[in-house]
């Protein structure tokens, strides 16, 4: 320090002070006319396209190594990196580019780990570009709320409609299952429905949607809770074989779904299956369950698959280049639009603080999904019921399709989902 002299020391202090204020400090500063606090810097992002722009840091917490949804989570994360790269190349958001690469953490689909890594990155990020999983995000939701940290979820529970800090996209599991039953009623007219589901928001939300729809459509309903793991499905398999429902709504991981569908069909079950979107993985077409999947399985989905012809889908395929098609990419891409809209609105309002971003997100009346969701989607200002997106597409296993599933029905809203008043998280009604 002595060698630097008093001037050098003063400069160092100034620089370190400025860094603290920009990166982790809670004190508000103004960059030009835009107010900022946490996770926004005047310095460019690492590897910035335009070095003259500041940087907005967003965190990603996903299931990247050993959790049950990693086959979806890794492409989701890659698609989000590509999405924000495209945003930056198109001029960024106001005077800023967006970084989603520096604060990427693995939650291993474990709520405790999720909270731990969230606490690690919280002082450095404005919001979360991705928080994967319902139970995992539930572990940090109170912290998100008390610190006004806006987050784009990678899950579809109906609880998110009631949380201002969560900017969800697409229909929730509850609405998805209602639409699945409306579709089934029209095509197969089942008399009895069984929901086979994982515990927690993911499975229970879908099961509750199926129950509410079955009640309104005059079908008998039963629910069977199961655990994650292909070897843990014996109970669910037996329950299906005993009750012999006409239709089973499956809300599990892909390996579990394959075990349930493959083995019940092998043991003589004659009904049909509709799985929520995370039940599918293209590799299942190589498994022993493939013939059963091809014959009896359909997938409900909150948006259309990889190969769809829309501006958003095209932009996604271009941005990702020659990857193996996977609808994890599609989901990651769609989920990013609402955060982009919220950031743009916040910059427009001149307030890129956490509170400013939250206010901007709450005031959004629509999000431009470039045709991946119908216009009017992303209306967070309208509240949970009016703002809820209620469209679902139906796919079936198809070896010729890019992601192993081919469209059976384009995005539609069934009469049950249309009439339903979303007055609380669905899973509370199971």
């Amino acid at each position, binding site marked *: 320090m002595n060698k630097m002299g008093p001037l050098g020391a003063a400069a160092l202090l100034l620089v370190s002070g400025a860094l603290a204020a920009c990166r982790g400090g809670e004190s508000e500063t103004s960059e030009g006319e835009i107010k900022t606090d946490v996770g926004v810097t005047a310095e460019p992002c690492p590897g910035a396209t335009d070095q003259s722009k500041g940087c907005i840091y967003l965190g990603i917490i996903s299931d990247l*190594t*050993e959790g*049950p949804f*990693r*086959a979806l989570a*890794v*492409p989701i994360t890659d698609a989000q990196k590509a999405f924000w790269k495209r945003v930056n190349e198109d001029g960024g958001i106001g005077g800023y580019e967006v970084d989603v690469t520096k604060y990427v953490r693995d939650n291993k689909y474990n709520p405790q780990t999720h909270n731990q890594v969230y606490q690690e990155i919280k002082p450095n990020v404005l919001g979360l570009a991705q928080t994967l999983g319902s139970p995992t995000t539930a572990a940090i939701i109170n912290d998100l709320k008390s610190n006004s940290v806006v987050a784009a979820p990678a899950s579809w529970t109906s609880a998110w409609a009631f949380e201002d800090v969560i900017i969800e996209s697409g229909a929730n599991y509850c609405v998805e299952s209602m639409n699945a039953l409306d579709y089934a009623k029209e095509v197969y007219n089942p008399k009895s429905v069984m929901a086979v589901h994982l515990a927690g928001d993911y499975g229970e939300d879908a099961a509750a949607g199926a129950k509410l729809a079955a009640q309104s459509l005059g079908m008998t309903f039963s629910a*069977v*809770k*199961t*655990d*994650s*793991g*292909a*070897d*843990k499905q*014996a*109970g*669910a*398999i*037996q*329950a299906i074989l*005993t009750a012999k429902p006409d239709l089973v709504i499956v809300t599990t991981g*892909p*390996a579990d779904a*394959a*075990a349930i569908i*493959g*083995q019940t*069909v*092998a*043991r003589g079950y004659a009904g049909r299956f509709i799985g929520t979107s995370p039940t599918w*993985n*293209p*590799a*299942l077409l*190589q*498994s*022993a*369950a493939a013939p*059963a999947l091809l014959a009896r399985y359909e997938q409900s989905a909150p948006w259309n698959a990889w190969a769809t012809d829309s501006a958003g889908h095209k932009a996604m395929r271009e941005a990702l280049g020659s990857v193996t098609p996977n609808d994890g990419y599609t989901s990651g891409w769609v989920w990013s639009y609402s955060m982009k809209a919220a950031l743009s609105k916040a910059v427009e309002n001149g307030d890129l603080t956490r509170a400013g971003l939250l206010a901007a997100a709450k005031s959004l009346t629509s999000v431009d999904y470039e045709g991946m969701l119908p216009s009017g989607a992303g209306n967070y200002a309208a509240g949970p019921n009016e703002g809820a997106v209620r469209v679902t597409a139906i796919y079936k296993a198809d070896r010729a399709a890019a992601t192993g599933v081919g469209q059976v029905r384009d995005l539609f809203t069934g009469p049950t989902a249309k009439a339903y008043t979303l007055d609380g998280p669905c899973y509370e009604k199971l």
Partner: protein
Amino acid sequence: MAELIEAVLRGLGTGSVYALLALGFVIIYKATRVISFAQPAFMLAGVTMVTYLVLEVSFWVAVPVAALLTGLLALGVERLAVRPMVGRPAFVVAIITLGVDVAVRVVVNAFIGLDVRNVLDPWGLRTVGIGGIDMQQRHLAAFLTTAALVAALFAFFRFTRMGLAMRAAAYDQEAALAQGVSVGTVFALSWGLAGALAAVAGTFAAAGSSVDAALWLIALTALPVIILGGLDSLPGAVVGGLAIGVLQELTATYQNHAPWLGGNVSVITPYVVMLLVLLVRPYGLFGTREVERV
């Protein structure tokens, strides 16, 4: 009646997988007095090798080659991580095997990748029907393979010099050493055998299903099996494995008569059995009763 018989047959199929895994645990325990918690990792490594090998050669070649390679892997791990610990308390070595398990699985998970993998077995989910009773071919194959391997192991321990050496070392290591038995070779061979058996078990666990990173959890069921059969009894491992498999399937089949137990009680039945055995007969059905003089 048909339902009951079919449940028992399914149980014998899954029980065969447990038996093969448990045999690995017991072989290592008998030779080294250590419970090796690395067996789940060897099972996952073996079955993952099969998923790669079947893309190049037929299933019938892939499985023995993967078993051999897994045996060599186990042998290498024993040499590097366990042999230097000879003479240390068994507890320390057991903890080291836990570390080995995690390390090997991390590497194997990288090979499994994101998607589920398949062993492309010839049975799939097809069944054979005899007199109105259906049995899945993969269960029949698992049972027959286990029977053949158990017979071969019995012959090996009974009729070969190395088998005799292993039995001698299991009985009294120092006495065996004094008689010229290479206890080091016995250790290595026991790890190699256990690794190979785990690879075969993993293949049958994945037959008709698929391979993902969570498959290793199946191997944990071998712990209740060896507690039931007796830690140091090879017949105990086989009988215990089949018994636990059958019990689990019967519970799954008839659990709807006791809905208050929940929808997936069969998953925990092996552990309930383990608890009961530990309370009533801690050395298991066929294990050696320890006599302690105080």
